[in-house]
């Protein structure tokens, strides 16, 4: 019997021709020291750790492990630079330094993108088109604020806070460094920044750019290391401000550690964001939005749309389309421009995701994963969705930070508002409907800091980002992002 077209298509084994981004043009050293007081210095302990490419487990470089002693050195250098240079410099000159950093980053954008992909496992399409341009733009945006701060805070005198200690996560390494450093510098603060231990390379490349820019020594210090390095920053007596992006658990430890001190804090913590699809939504666009919401950056996104709420009347249709779309996702080498889902950032994170998936199955939820071949080396996890999930289910309550989506249905607007808000987190939400008044009803009632209407995972330097409730406090981006780094009188 003759096969129909669909059967023929399904019976043919085929694959995309690889379209690999070249790595020949990048400059990586074998070993990286600490960037303190404008110089590259060896760690006092003499210890280094390896950073690997999670896509193939090959070692990329050795990174200095900063101790409390090194952190102290960095804080002293930041304090000196603050008092003697940065806070007394005309604001317009400060602006020009930050503009210059933005330009140098743009010039080296492709190199930064390739290194980001190698070190973090994210796809080259993402690091090239999103992470790096946004990071550059962030510096460019805040540069211009440096000499215009009085316009941001009516009826107040604006002064910097002093030395900012900044601790950033591994999911958007360079972008988070930009989110932290740019507004701090614009407001006249100096910085000690610690990148995450699995993704230090782009922060170190940024240190090279900062060195090249001629920024006065000590204004930005980069110390690499593990959690104890971060703790040394949090507990250092001469730091005025802690800015942290990471898990809610660590955020709480930091909040407790600085209780009773005069340190100011901004915390960008976890999320379990709702993505809500109404029956009148443009279904195909919504399905793309769901896919982007949860599988973008392998789901390593604090604002990932990890809880999907679909109106009951269209649930079957949406789920079928979603499965079909998941079947067509391409998982593999992050350097390949065909790749939609790259490598999980670390072995540890892969194990966390596996743990949660196991819990989901034990809780009785129905799992769907496309039949896809994962590379043999490296850390990978297929896109996963869970049906028949209860509101109280662990996988619907806790942040998984991986490509795992839970699906629930709803009938009425009030029901979905209650379900969406029933979470200790409040970072983001998505709403898909053709009805404008409904969008504004929902965006008003959802208790979350960022709401995407008929879109998801959009970011911009001019747009404030940050959470309600246990997703943290303070905003990054836009004019609101400045208030985290100034003292008003």
């Amino acid at each position: 019997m003759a096969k129909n077209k669909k059967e023929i298509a399904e019976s043919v084994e085929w694959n995309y021709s690889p379209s690999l981004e070249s790595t020949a043009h990048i400059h990586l050293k074998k070993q990286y020291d600490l960037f303190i007081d404008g110089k590259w210095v060896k760690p006092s302990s003499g210890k280094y750790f390896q950073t690997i490419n999670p896509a193939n487990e090959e070692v990329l470089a050795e990174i200095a492990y900063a101790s409390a002693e090194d952190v102290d050195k960095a804080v002293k250098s930041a304090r000196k630079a603050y008092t003697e240079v940065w806070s007394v410099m005309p604001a317009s000159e400060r602006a020009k330094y930050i503009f210059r950093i933005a330009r140098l980053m743009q010039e080296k954008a492709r190199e930064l993108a390739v290194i980001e992909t190698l070190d973090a496992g994210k796809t080259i399409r993402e690091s090239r088109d999103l992470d790096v341009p946004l990071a550059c733009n962030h510096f460019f945006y805040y540069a211009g604020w440096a000499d215009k701060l009085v316009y941001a805070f009516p009826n107040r005198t604006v002064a910097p806070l002093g030395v900012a200690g900044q601790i950033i996560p591994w999911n958007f390494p360079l972008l988070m460094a930009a989110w932290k450093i740019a507004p701090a510098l614009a407001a006249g603060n100096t910085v000690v920044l610690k990148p995450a231990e699995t993704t230090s390379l782009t922060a170190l490349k940024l240190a090279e750019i900062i060195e090249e820019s001629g920024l006065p020594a000590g204004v930005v210090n980069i110390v690499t290391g593990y959690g104890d390095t971060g703790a040394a920053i949090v507990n250092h007596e001469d730091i005025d401000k802690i800015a942290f992006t990471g898990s809610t658990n660590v955020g709480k430890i930091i909040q407790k550690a600085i209780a009773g001190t005069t340190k100011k804090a901004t915390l960008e913590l976890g999320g379990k964001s709702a993505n809500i699809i109404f029956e009148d939504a443009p279904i195909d666009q919504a399905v793309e939005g769901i896919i982007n919401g949860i599988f973008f950056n392998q789901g390593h996104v604090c604002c990932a749309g990890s809880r999907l709420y679909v109106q009951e009347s269209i649930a079957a249709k949406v789920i079928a389309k979603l499965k079909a779309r998941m079947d067509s996702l391409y998982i593999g080498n992050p350097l390949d421009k065909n790749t939609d889902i790259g490598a999980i950032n670390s072995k540890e994170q892969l194990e966390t995701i596996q743990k949660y998936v196991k819990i989901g199955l034990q809780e009785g939820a129905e799992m769907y994963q496309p039949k896809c071949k994962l590379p043999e080396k490296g850390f990978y996890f297929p896109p996963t969705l869970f049906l028949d999930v209860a509101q109280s289910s662990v996988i619907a309550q806790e942040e998984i930070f991986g490509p795992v989506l839970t699906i629930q249905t709803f009938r009425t607007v009030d029901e979905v508002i209650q379900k969406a808000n029933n979470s200790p987190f409040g970072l983001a939400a998505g709403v898909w409907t053709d009805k404008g008044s409904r969008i504004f009803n929902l965006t008003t009632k959802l208790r979350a800091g960022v709401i995407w209407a008929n879109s998801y995972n959009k970011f911009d330097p001019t747009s404030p980002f940050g959470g309600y409730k246990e997703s943290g406090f303070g905003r990054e981006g836009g004019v609101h992002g400045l208030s985290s780094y100034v003292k008003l009188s």
Partner: protein
Amino acid sequence: MSRLEVLKTYKIYIGGQFPRTESGRYYSPLDKKGKPIGNICLSSRKDVRNAVVAARKAFGGWSERSAFNRGQILYRIAEMLEGRREQFISELQMQGSTKVAAEKEVLRAIDRIVYYAGWCDKYQQILSSVNPVASSHFNFSVVEPTGVVGIVTPQECALIGLVSLVMPVICGGNTCVVVASENSPLCAITFAEVLNSSDLPAGVVNILTGTNLELNNVLATHMDVNAMVYGGKDQEALKSIQESSVLNVKRVISQVKDWMESNAQDLYLISDTQEVKTTWHPIENIGGASSSY
């Protein structure tokens, strides 16, 4: 025969009602001469929980009131306080103020409420923004109330301290649970009577009397309280509130000012208990329409 004065029973204020503390306990704070000023409810942790429930219940309705309407109600509070000036002046004197100081404090309190009444429909415009994003989206950020706020009022300036901390919080659409001055609680409860006759919905402001030691941390550890405002000067108490607040990542705001100063009021006291919400809305790019239409 001289007439026997009818004494007032001071009770706490929860959900628009004046119950006694569920614990049945009382304490008797002393005036400057060492004489008890009354039998005051010694509120318990159960009272705090009841008050938080009332505040949460009131939050949706209050935060959704129109800004104009909130302004009207705050102004009404000032009107009611103005009408009861003499009562507050005499209570402040019972608590140890001189007549001159008491008068000054009451007048300042009335004017402060009027000040925040005027902010109710204005702070949003100053604190919000339209953000010029690079993609085809209409992107804006507005402020919204944080939620249920715990307020620990200062020991001194019992009336103006309470008014100065509570008004910016409710002006911004939050609801609150207030711990009154431990030593000078009389005017806090009488102020609750003013609130109760001002069209302020039940539960928006709840006022408890008792000890800071017992009440502060019950509020700060409560999982349904979103922020704490501490108006005292005790650094240890502040630290303790900050540590307790970690449980659900509360925002903790420490406010120490001379509240009798005419300028101890501003927009930034309102913004302290506001959250910034950013909304992205796509803009349809209609094919072919160029910018020079």
